[in-house]
């Protein structure tokens, strides 16, 4: 172990970790918004809307995230979409994880006992009222864990934006591995940073899950 080297590169990694956290947080917000839209589209009674939701989820889950990022960043300018690497990373990761999160949201809504929806409709709630006042409050609890799993996948997946030259943890690791020829030391730093970020998120998910558990 070359401790001196590790001390020298550490400040660069701390800056990179901030970028990883920023990108992950912003794509999480976009992903959750997309998931809410897509899940309601997939559960909608209106067929064209449902079809749109299905297409989004199927296309983004059926192709590699890396291709989606490349298409957005390198292919975007051809259709008039010029994005900085950071923005392309956030939008690409957000759209991708949104498709996975949509399935977590939909799964949670479908997991609520059928009788709940039937009873709500029987006493005169409309479809949207049933969703808003009966199904969603109960489903919210059930989606905390799956959405937490999606979020952790998003943090690890954010490594991909190193390929469109966003200077985050993996980009920094790659740069120092090729310039110092000390792959194990560099990997150790990067691994610790990812593990700490993921650990904090996992604890937060545990907390939320307990906080909203049925006593």
């Amino acid at each position, binding site marked *: 172990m070359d401790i001196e080297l590790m001390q020298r590169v550490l400040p660069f990694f701390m800056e990179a970790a901030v970028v990883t956290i920023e990108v992950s947080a912003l794509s999480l917000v976009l992903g959750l918004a997309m998931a809410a839209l897509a899940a309601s589209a997939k559960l909608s009674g209106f067929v064209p809307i449902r079809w749109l939701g299905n297409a989004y989820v199927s296309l983004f889950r*059926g192709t*590699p*995230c890396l291709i989606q990022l490349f298409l957005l960043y*390198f292919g975007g300018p051809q259709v008039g979409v010029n994005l900085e690497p950071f923005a392309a990373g956030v939008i690409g990761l957000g759209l991708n994880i949104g498709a996975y999160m949509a399935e977590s949201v939909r799964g949670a809504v479908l997991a609520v006992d059928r009788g709940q929806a039937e009873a709500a409709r029987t006493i005169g709630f409309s479809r949207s009222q049933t969703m808003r006042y009966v199904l969603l409050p109960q489903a919210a609890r059930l989606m905390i864990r799956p959405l937490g799993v999606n979020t952790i996948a998003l943090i690890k997946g954010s*490594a991909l934006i190193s390929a469109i030259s966003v200077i985050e943890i993996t980009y920094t690791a790659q740069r120092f591995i090729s310039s110092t020829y000390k792959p194990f030391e560099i990997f150790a730093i990067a*691994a610790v940073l990812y*593990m700490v970020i*993921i650990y904090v998120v996992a604890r937060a998910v545990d907390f939320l899950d307990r906080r909203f558990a049925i006593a």
Partner: protein
Amino acid sequence: MGLDFSVLPPYAELLGVGLWWTIVLTVSAGIVSFVMGILFAVTVLYAPAVIAYPVRFFIWLFMGTPLLLQLFLIYYGLVQIGIDLPALVAGIVGLGLHFAVYNGDIIRAGIAAVDPGQTEGARSIGFGRWQALRYVVIPQAVRNTTPAVGNMMIALLKESSLVSVIGIAELVHASQLAISETYRPFEFYIAAAALYYLANLILEAGLNMIEKRVEASR
């Protein structure tokens, strides 16, 4: 600069070869990840602590870090300790180990879920510990976990795109080659995405068939 998909046909063969290597990578890494997954599961559950703990540490490390970082470590790191793997082998090892960790976790849960009476029954009719595991418990565990392991294979097909960064000439890499000659990223990445989507559909259909077989064999 508008879109012009007529740039694609001259590169059909290049993309086809790329797709072929994506399939080769997915199948080889899939086999590695399945076999290693069973090994990880058995080690974590039954091996003595001196072996089980290092394996658990490795699993913990690989679950908490991105695949891309692991690929860099394997490709550039092993050279440092004198193991110079060709890119293709490094790619198969990296993808295989990454998914073995997840398959191992799934299969471990599957083994734990097999009724203890199965082991007791096998032992009482004269099976040894390993025989009971090998012929009675593991086959049932693998059967119960087929859908979850199948999902990992679908993820593996998509994640195999990452090995393009260590220079393996699979579908993404082939597209990049074509783009460097034509400057048409949009058209070629759309084409690559379509090929992945198609391969994904075929893989899903295949996995559904396997799942039905496995269901029927109970």
